[in-house]
């Protein structure tokens, strides 16, 4: 069956699966996505593969803010990635994809856009 060329919200986990202020890694149509839950209620999703080290680890980083940006620090060499855009703060031009994410009831959904 052909997927329609439109937005698909894919359920990835329950909200309770994510400890507040941490991330988890979810598999979305073969791609690794890091989903973060902030204790204030916000949800963010970015690619899980750290472009600097090549390791799939961003979901395991520490979440916080630097100035106005909400970020995760890669556990390998501590570069910071903006949770809203996926941009790496230390190296302009480097970054990961940011994914739309939402909470429907108690279920976390990531939007998978077919190109």
């Amino acid at each position: 069956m052909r997927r329609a060329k439109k937005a698909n919200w894919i359920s990835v986990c329950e909200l309770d699966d994510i400890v507040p202020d941490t991330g988890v890694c979810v598999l979305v149509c073969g791609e690794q996505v890091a989903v973060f839950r902030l204790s204030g209620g916000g949800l963010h999703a970015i690619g899980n593969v750290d472009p600097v080290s090549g390791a799939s680890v961003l979901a395991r980083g520490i979440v916080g803010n630097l100035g106005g940006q909400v970020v995760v620090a890669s556990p390998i060499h501590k570069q910071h990635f903006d949770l809203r855009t996926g941009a790496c703060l230390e190296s302009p031009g480097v970054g990961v994809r940011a994914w739309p994410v939402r909470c429907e009831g108690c279920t976390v959904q990531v939007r998978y856009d077919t190109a």
Partner: protein
Amino acid sequence: MGMKLVVVGNGMVGHRLLEELVALRPPGLEITVLCEESRPAYDRVHLSEFFAGKSADELSLVAPGFFEQAGITVRLATRAVGIDRAIKRVTTSDGGVIAYDKLVIATGSVPFVPSIPGNDRDGCLVYRTLDDLDALSDWGRRSSHGVVVGGGLLGLECAKALRDMGLETHVVEFASRLMAVQVDDAGGQLLRKSIEDLGLVVHTGKNTLDIGDGETKRHRMTFADGSHLETDLIVFSAGIRPRDELAGACELGVGQRGGIMVDNFCRTRDRDVYAIGECAQWGGKVFGLVAPGYEMARVVANHLNALLVRSQAPVLPEFVGADMSTKLKLMGVDVASIGDAHGATPGSRTYQFSDGHRQVYKKLVVSQDGKRLLGGVLVGDAADYGTWLQMMLNGLELPESPESLILPAIEGAKPGLAVDALPATAQICSCNNVSKAQLCEAVAAGATSIGALKQATRAGTTCGGCVPLVTQIMKAEMKRQGLAVNNHLCEHFPYSRQELYHLVRVERIRRFDELLARHGHGLGCDICKPVAASILASCWNEFVLQKEHASLQDSNDYFLANIQKDGTYSVVPRMPGGEVTPDSLIRIGEIARKYGLYTKLTGGQRVDMFGARVEQLPSIWEELIEAGFESGHAYGKSLRTVKSCVGSTWCRYGVQDSVGKAIDLENRYKGLRSPHKLKFAVSGCTRECAEAQSKDVGIIATEKGWNLYVCGNGGMKPRHAELLAGDLDGDTLVRCIDRFLMFYIRTADRLQRTSVWRDNLEGGMDYLRDVVVNDSLGIAEELEAEMKHVVDTYECEWKRAVNDPQVRRRFRHFVNSDAGDDRVAFAPVRGQLRPATAREKETRFGRLPTPVTTE
């Protein structure tokens, strides 16, 4: 054209000349050094520390590879025996002849031995070289009673050495008081009392006439007043005499009271021969301190350099005499003498303050008009030394009532030295001739900790007396440059780690959100969260993965394993003391084989297993726990291992059970969270096979107990540990370590190893010893209680984790799939597995890393 330079003598001053020359790099200079001793230059200023546990290597002043890199020929155990100035040749003790263009004599001095009949008996010694020290410790072992002849600076240093060896120690002084040159009668009396309180016996006004056989001991000393004293060993330390015999024999001009006469460039009457240090005499004076010697070395190095460079005649430094002010600590008693200590200047006024209870004596000598400080004496408390010295050297105007300088501070009303008032040219470190301007430049260039500043400028690295002043200048300069002495942890907390620790303790804060709400702002970050997690764990020792702490942990602590470059983890089970049974070792092997882990031995005597995927960790640990293992905390900023040698149980040389001690200590401190990792080691004898002196806490067995060394480390900047306390029994040892560790945890910065922490402690090791051993802050009981809490509440984090279903379910790569990370791949290496390289992954999976570029 080149120049052949021969330097006779490789003492502190002779070696400083070489260092100055190497720094200037004059072209065509060829240097040969003759060193009479079998070791090159070492630190004679701190010689008595040899008896407090410092090794000959640690006293060395020669950087590794120094001679080789600089292309200097050094001939050890070779003495110069003659100089032929006509043909410019030096003859050596082994019959060699060396030609020179320029010659520098830096032969130093010899101890003065008064001509008393019997002064050459066996067991009559001197105290000057490391060989002398070896002889002294040899005789010390065969003696129970020792006498030092001479109550001056060196004599008292030597008396400390005798006392450290456990001898009943007497000091015999010809003059009517101790340190007659530096202090006055009142100061001498107080010094005497302080030293007698330490168990030494002082005899003043004693003129020794004869040394002969004793009745109960080896020698009997007979004095002019008819009294006598029996003792096993005698050390002469009654001053020094310049070693000028080489110069005398070739008619170089030697002063009446000794010393080769030199001019302002330290040249002798022969323009090709220089003399520096204690063998030289300038202006009728011989300078028996290291700082003037260093200055002479600098003068000669610049002079030689100018001769070689020849480009233009720059203004060359000249030696114009030196300030003989001095400060030292004698057996824990501070003594300082500044400038005109005896008030010899016509019309000078003196002020004195004496506190018999605290055993403090201060004397101030000021000019007739009361505006300038001329000199002073400090006994018992020399904290004002740096300030007074600067006031004198720079002619700073004194406050209206100069006596306020010596009266005890009342509510901080004491006028201090405003470092801003010091001119840029003020010499702050006299040993290394470092000016205020040089310090400020180094601060501007980024040396913003006392450790970095010492390294950049050498200030405070010889006698250490100027360190408080250097610190003040550093802080003032940082403030002035708007570097704002900002020790804030990060943008979320306007506090240092130490301050946060206190807030957590005092307010009994148990959670990060509480700490953030009360004292911080924002969400926190990867700096402050792990720091808070560590502080909370040090204070309350709750399970690091419980819900409210989990999000603070670095990935290592979050998964209780060490993350590697490819996102897999390594696993290290604890093996206390490095002891492991064959069965346990087999189980480790079986588990590693089952999960396909790469295994390697660590430097801390245990096994590291690499390549574990996050979802494998709980089952690996279930099996390890089943086999009797506990978490090794290799992932934490916490106690790693206590390395040990095999000790007296098996070793022919061991004097204590080092393995048993290591196991006890590892079990006591396992799980303790600290500002940085902590490594221990225990050696069973002085051969030190466990390399304890390279550890944060190193313990070496002695016949009587344990010597405790602290603040060493390997790594990028290796550093030897220093003796904190000696011959401790088991209980005292543990108490000292408890206090030391908790004091470190309280006061260190984030990620600051114990060695750097110690470098930044004002007062250094003496201060640390006062706090830990003598409880000078009165906090020992508190520190011990805090440690007891951590020890009593220990639990194996892995045991807790595998048995907690909530925690255990976090150990998955995907929260919505049981699949593993498909980007982890291995390749073979020497019969095991290693992470595949990026290229290998590319050929295997196609080009996988697809970093999206965002603008």
